[in-house]
């Protein structure tokens, strides 16, 4: 019984906070605006604290893998080592210090850029796989459109003024500005409707992402 009461209390608090923040977007009263800003600041602070909790959890997961020498423990060891080194150096020299920026510039940025480059290869392979695995009209249309847009966007192979280059470029613009933009707007409207109902369910306490 106590558990149910506590659960209802959390739902009521979440709903009340949500209603005030939501009203702040529609109603221009100072009182509501101030409360909204206060809650938003609290949320930002809590999110920062949650990042620390999340990082602790991350280290905890990898420490367990390392201590039990589970499969891939060497990567866990590397992660913990990199985490501790970065943390200590950033605490000593500051997050905007030369050492921290060096780590970002020469370690994190190249690795993330490498993953981005891997994405282009991945998409090419996935495109071939799409043809073999899901050979329906929509998939073929999707790939054909992607091919036309790529050719129309890329550097001209047959001269910049040739009829094929100009034609492909115009076709690409027509697809991007008419079909693609129209379709994207349609999807955006659907997503907005879905996001609204998801938010309202949380406000009503029907969905309780904070547990029950």
């Amino acid at each position: 019984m106590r558990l149910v009461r506590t659960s209802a209390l959390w739902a009521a608090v979440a709903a009340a906070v949500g209603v005030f923040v939501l009203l702040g977007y529609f109603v221009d009263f100072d009182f509501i605006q101030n409360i909204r800003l206060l809650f938003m600041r609290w949320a930002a602070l809590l999110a920062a604290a949650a990042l620390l909790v999340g990082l602790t959890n991350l280290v905890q997961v990898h420490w367990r893998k390392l201590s039990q020498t589970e499969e891939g423990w060497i990567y866990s060891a590397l992660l913990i080592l990199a985490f501790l080194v970065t943390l200590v150096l950033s605490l000593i020299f500051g997050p905007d210090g030369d050492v921290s920026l060096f780590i970002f510039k020469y370690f994190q940025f190249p690795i993330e850029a490498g993953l981005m480059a891997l994405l282009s290869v991945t998409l090419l392979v996935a495109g071939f796989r799409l043809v073999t695995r899901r050979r329906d009209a929509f998939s073929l249309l999707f790939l054909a459109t992607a091919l036309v847009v790529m050719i129309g966007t890329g550097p001209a192979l047959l001269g910049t003024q040739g009829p094929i280059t100009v034609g492909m470029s115009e076709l690409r613009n027509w697809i991007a500005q008419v079909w693609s933009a129209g379709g994207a707007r349609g999807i955006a409207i659907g997503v907005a409707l879905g996001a609204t109902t998801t938010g309202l369910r949380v406000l009503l306490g029907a969905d309780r992402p904070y547990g029950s």
Partner: protein
Amino acid sequence: MTAIDLQGLLLLFAFLGLMLGSAAIGRRFPATFRQIAAFEALGKAIERAVEAGERVHLSLGTGSVIGAESAPAFAGLAALTRIARATSMSDRPAVVTAGDGAMAILARDTLRSSYSEAGAADLYDPTSGRLLGPTPFSYVAGLPTVLNNESVSVHMLSGFYGFEAGLAAEFGERARAFVIGGTNEVQSQALIYVTSQNPLLGEEVFASGAYLGAGELHKASLRAQDVIRIAIIVLILVGVIAATFEDLI
């Protein structure tokens, strides 16, 4: 209060009224939804995972709790309540990963309460809901370890993703898992369409709760969305016709 603010507020109340109204009549007039092959396949894939003693992995994406990008992750958490109940018979609990600390905490809370409600509180493991990496690509870089080393056979993506969506789905395919994914970003949806076996397009990601049986209000939400969508389509058509005739005159 400006006119636009009033319109927004009225639309919100209309939405709320439609949802509650649909929920009230939902039992007497049950809704029939179109079949979404991805959700049907998901149910079977979860059953297979439970029977084989393998894990279900839910990825909540790389978005933050604050802001509109959290919406698909909240839809994923609603689906997680059902997934946790479905996997409560298994000896391997579902694992949830996020690219945001607060989202990882919410995932742990959802897992804890769902297993507790399903009478399998002992299945809850605090490390089952975890932060993989605080930046989009560091999050994706951590995914193969989870997918390959933790016997994951169902890989569900429900959250905000940027370009990393393509890699997030592809890693699941390479781990030979059942991959289903959806997001709110239009460009990322295209990436998921190419890389995943079961893409969720448009707002389908928000329908996961209704299709997995998370409650009457989830079904009512879909009905409300359909009514508002039809109203928007009618308004757009009226606007197009009015603008065309205005030009002609």
